[in-house]
């Protein structure tokens, strides 16, 4: 058998072992078959693997005749065995030795490898490049997810849901890095995992962020520079120092409550055996009923009738148990009843985790009833149920809404070990886990240790497995809607596809605008052409949508930035995001990051008042608010950042502008115009204005970046009420809305966004300065007038001002007039580069294929104006066109 086949088989097996129920004979049969095949097929290279498979086969055979408890335990051992087999196959058998469960009863080769030792080495071993690349390419999104979770935890507290989600991610990374031999990362993940399991302490979020940052940097280093030795010592120190002073309860909101509950055990004092027997029988009936109702609710959380029935069951048990002084039972059903009551009132959503907790309660009640029965028969008191405190914690957590926030439970990875599953499903508490961990010095696997030390009964482990399976089943339907299957595609290929789609669109328009088609096509051809047009458009739209990504990761980065800045400056800021699912072109998302960082920084540094008292005095809440939102409007994307800080100081800006001569004395400016001044390059660096207005650092850079994205930026501010910066961005960088203009025989495309208006001037509107530079008067305002034909040296252009057309364009905050021959129309065009052989051409930002198949050039208005200005100022010095050509021809020599 080949190694790959073997690996696949073990993978299937791993899923089987985790998913299946010890009583599911079919599954056991499947496992036996697989173990048998592996035992036979394992190549000589893997002696341990073969041995393990053989032992596992024997164990699985025994399972069929064993009691449920024994079988469940055997299943655990099998799961661990499969995990060890995976390590043996993917890494080395040496490392697997330490993982072979003792219960398997096979002799492992001498020289027991210490797992902790083997992972501590700083230098990684050689790794399969493909696997590594695959792993690294996936890490970016994993890191984003992790950061999002940590930040959520920072905002709303680290509840069980988030804790286990974070742990799941860390655990997965640990496993993967372990397999890849990235030892430092694995070690860090291991420590982090233990830390989270131990409950963390007050600085949990900071530490987790440090871990995330370290991992992120490391993975990026790996991506860019290959595997190099890294050192996680610094980050690891965090945990050493932290664990000494760790107060597990601090971060655990329910930690304090856990102590309040004490299981009483079953002591039957002065109880009527007849009544008790009736109670047991009756309650069992209720519990059976509860199971049915729970299953209904799992499928249909809204089912009020099932919920009421469930509530009644618990209520009845509670009443009878209280009467019979069965404290444990009555208290447990009481809390469960509270939980259900909350759900009944609509204050709580009965989602996966909550339903799980109730399932657990039902199981616990069954156990308690069994205990009562036993006590009744033997007459001996029964010890308190060890599981109850943990269950109570879970119930209380659920009651406070923390376990029920998310309705869907993320599926557990098939290779997840039982220990993790136990904690996640809530069958055991962090406290117990912690105890076991401390006892085992962090080197023992939880599930095994828990069972061995008797912390958890094997049947409960099996129950946890089942509960987990149920949770997975419950989540399955929700996930089917939410999580879509995706395929990773090389961006090059995607771009090529878009190119081809572009060609298709062009070809289609060339055909449909052909004279022969336009003039004398039959009705049938016209109809077919229309159909073709429709399909082409939808292909184009689909293609474009493939480049779209949600802005969420960017917003998340900003959330982190706000958090860090707020902490540094000691300001209390609430950060709100809206519309983070808004999709933007990949390239826009990449480029929007820097401007956003600038703006967020400005909002926090300057916008938000330093002293909360100032805010209170101004009648605002002490907690400042910064909002980042994204939304669609009219074919554009808007990204806005709003704060409720002190706002811009209009007078100060104006004063400074007058001082600098940017604004003439006495001229009346609108608020908008005044605020726009801060985008002017010189302005931003002026220290005085920055201090007074509280804005402006690098605002010109922000504006330039946004303009480079062919976007617009606007600023609305009210003194004392806050500032909103609104950025309008195109949906995609690949398409542009342009005006087609004609100069001479050449067509050019001018981005519609840069054109303010176009007009045909009268003779009186134009005046000449020094007999050369021309000025245009538009509604009393003078602006320079440039002829495009001159700037681009286009022959045969219209020279008569009255026959030509003038476009008023804005560049660098100034309005200038550009003279062209004619406006041909408005059109959406797909932007293409002029080919790498051409390089950058000043004044031209790219080309577009026009409907007739020719190339049209897209003008970069900003550069065109710059060219015009420099040409005007050095007109005398600049060599005429003929000279320039001569120089060029001479150059190749």
């Amino acid at each position: 058998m080949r190694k790959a086949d073997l690996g696949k088989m073990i993978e299937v097996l791993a899923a089987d072992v985790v998913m299946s129920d010890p009583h599911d004979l079919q599954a056991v049969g499947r496992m036996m078959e697989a173990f048998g095949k592996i035992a036979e097929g394992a190549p000589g290279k893997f002696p341990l693997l073969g041995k393990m498979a053989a032992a596992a086969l024997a164990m699985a055979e025994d399972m069929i005749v064993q009691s449920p408890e024994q079988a469940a335990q055997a299943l655990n051992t099998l799961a661990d065995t499969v995990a060890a087999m995976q390590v043996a196959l993917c890494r080395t058998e040496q490392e697997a030795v330490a993982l072979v469960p003792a219960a398997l009863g096979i002799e492992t080769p001498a020289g027991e490898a210490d797992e902790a030792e083997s992972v501590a080495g700083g230098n990684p071993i050689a790794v399969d490049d493909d696997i590594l690349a695959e792993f690294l390419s996936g890490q970016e999104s994993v890191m984003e997810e992790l950061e999002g979770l940590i930040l959520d935890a920072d905002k709303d507290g680290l509840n069980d849901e988030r804790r286990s989600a974070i742990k799941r991610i860390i655990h997965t990374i640990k496993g993967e890095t372990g397999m890849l031999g990235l030892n430092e990362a694995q070690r860090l993940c291991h420590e982090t995992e233990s830390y989270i399991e131990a409950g963390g302490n007050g600085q949990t979020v900071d530490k987790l962020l440090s871990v995330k940052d370290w991992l992120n940097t490391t993975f990026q280093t790996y991506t860019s520079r290959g595997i190099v030795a890294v050192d996680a010592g610094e980050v690891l120190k965090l945990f050493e120092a932290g664990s000494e002073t760790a107060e597990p309860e601090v971060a655990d909101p329910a930690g304090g409550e856990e102590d309040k509950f004490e299981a009483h055990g079953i002591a039957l004092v002065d109880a009527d055996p007849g009544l008790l027997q009736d109670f047991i029988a009756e309650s069992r009936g209720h519990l059976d009923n509860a199971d049915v109702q729970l299953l209904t609710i799992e499928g249909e959380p809204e089912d009020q009738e099932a919920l009421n029935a469930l509530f009644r069951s618990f209520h009845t048990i509670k009443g009878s148990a209280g009467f019979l002084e069965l404290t444990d039972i009555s208290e447990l059903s009481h809390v469960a009843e509270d939980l259900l009551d909350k759900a009944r009132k609509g204050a709580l959503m009965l989602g996966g985790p909550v339903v799980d907790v109730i399932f657990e309660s039902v199981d616990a009640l069954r156990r308690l009833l069994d205990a009562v029965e036993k006590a009744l028969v033997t007459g001996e008191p029964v010890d308190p149920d060890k599981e109850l405190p943990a269950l109570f914690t879970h119930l209380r957590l659920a009651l406070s809404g923390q376990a029920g926030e998310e309705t869907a439970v993320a599926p557990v990875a098939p290779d997840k070990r039982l220990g993790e599953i136990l904690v996640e499903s809530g069958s055991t508490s962090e406290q117990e886990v912690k105890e076991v961990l401390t006892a085992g010095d962090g080197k023992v696997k939880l599930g095994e240790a828990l069972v061995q030390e008797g912390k958890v009964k094997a049947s409960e482990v099996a129950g946890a497995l089942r509960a987990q399976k149920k949770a997975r089943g419950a989540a399955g339907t929700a996930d089917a809607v939410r999580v879509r299957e995706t395929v990773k595609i090389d961006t090059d290929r995607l771009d090529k596809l878009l190119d081809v789609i572009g060609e298709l669109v062009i070809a289609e328009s060339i055909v449909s605008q052909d004279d022969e088609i336009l003039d004398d096509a039959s009705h049938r051809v016209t109809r077919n052409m229309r159909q073709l047009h429709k399909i082409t458009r939808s292909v184009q739209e689909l293609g474009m949508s493939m480049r779209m990504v949600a802005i969420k990761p960017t917003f998340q980065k900003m959330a982190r930035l706000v958090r860090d800045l707020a902490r540094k400056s000691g300001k209390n800021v609430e950060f709100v995001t809206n519309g983070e699912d808004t999709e933007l072109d990949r390239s826009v998302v990449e480029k929007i990051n820097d401007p956003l960082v600038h703006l967020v920084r400005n909002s926090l540094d300057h916008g938000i008042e330093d002293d909360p008292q100032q805010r209170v005095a101004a009648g605002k809440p002490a907690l400042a608010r910064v909002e980042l939102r994204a939304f669609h409007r009219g074919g554009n994307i808007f990204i806005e950042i709003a704060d409720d800080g002190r706002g811009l100081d209009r007078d100060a800006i104006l004063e400074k502008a007058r001082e600098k001569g940017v604004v003439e004395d006495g001229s009346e400016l609108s608020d908008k115009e005044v605020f726009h001044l801060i985008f002017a390059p010189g302005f931003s660096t002026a220290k005085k204005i920055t201090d007074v207005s509280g804005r402006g650092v690098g605002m010109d850079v922000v504006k330039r970046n946004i303009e480079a994205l062919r976007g617009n930026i606007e600023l609305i501010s009210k003194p004392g009420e806050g500032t909103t910066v609104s950025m309008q961005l195109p949906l995609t960088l690949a398409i542009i809305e342009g005006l087609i203009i004609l100069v001479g025989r050449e067509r050019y495309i001018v981005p519609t966004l840069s054109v303010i208006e176009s007009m045909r001037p009268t003779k009186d509107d134009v005046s000449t300065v020094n007999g050369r530079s021309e000025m245009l008067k538009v509604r009393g305002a003078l602006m320079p007038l440039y002829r495009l034909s001159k700037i681009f040296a286009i022959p045969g252009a219209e020279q008569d001002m009255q026959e030509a057309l003038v476009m008023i364009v804005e560049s660098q905050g100034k309005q200038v007039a550009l003279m062209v021959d004619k406006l041909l129309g408005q059109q959406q065009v797909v932007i293409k580069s002029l080919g790498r052989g051409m390089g950058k051409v000043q004044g031209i930002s790219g080309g577009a294929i026009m409907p007739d198949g020719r190339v049209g050039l897209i003008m970069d208005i900003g550069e065109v104006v710059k060219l015009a200005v420099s040409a005007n100022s050095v007109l005398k010095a600049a060599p005429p066109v003929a000279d320039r050509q001569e120089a060029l021809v001479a150059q190749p020599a």
Partner: protein
Amino acid sequence: MATCETGATGLKSAENRVGDVDLAEKYLTFELAGEEYGIEILKVREIIGLLSITPVPRTPEYVRGVINLRGKVIPVVDPKLKFGMPRTEDTRETCIIVVEVSHAGEAISTGILVDRVREVLDIKSEDIEDAPEMGESVETEFIRGMGKTGDRVSILLDIDGVLTGGELEQLKKTKEG
């Protein structure tokens, strides 16, 4: 026609760097102002008829402009102007040879405007002579050698040099200046 033969091999052009040994290759010959020139067939992507060329402002004169090559925009260079030969009117036989050269690790497609495409010639390396010194007035920088077939002589161009070799940088400098 040469187009078909070149399609498959053109891709390799980037790796197939020159070296005197490799000169025994196939060459595509074409006409510029009556003279016969040749370029390695490995560099040729395809040959297309004259398309409508969009002139690009503020570029050297020998850059005739850009064309739409099946949705891709590529520049078209007129070697005659580059070599200081007189500009001639385009005729029905005027063709654009699309060549792919690698520059700074990137494959760059460029169109070369020629008066007429002639044929594909086998020229062995021993039949290639260094370009003779012809004094200051003759441009020899981009000539790889003179290829002899029978009594014919073709001027073999170093097309990478023509299109890249410091040329792009110069082009940029010109534009900036």
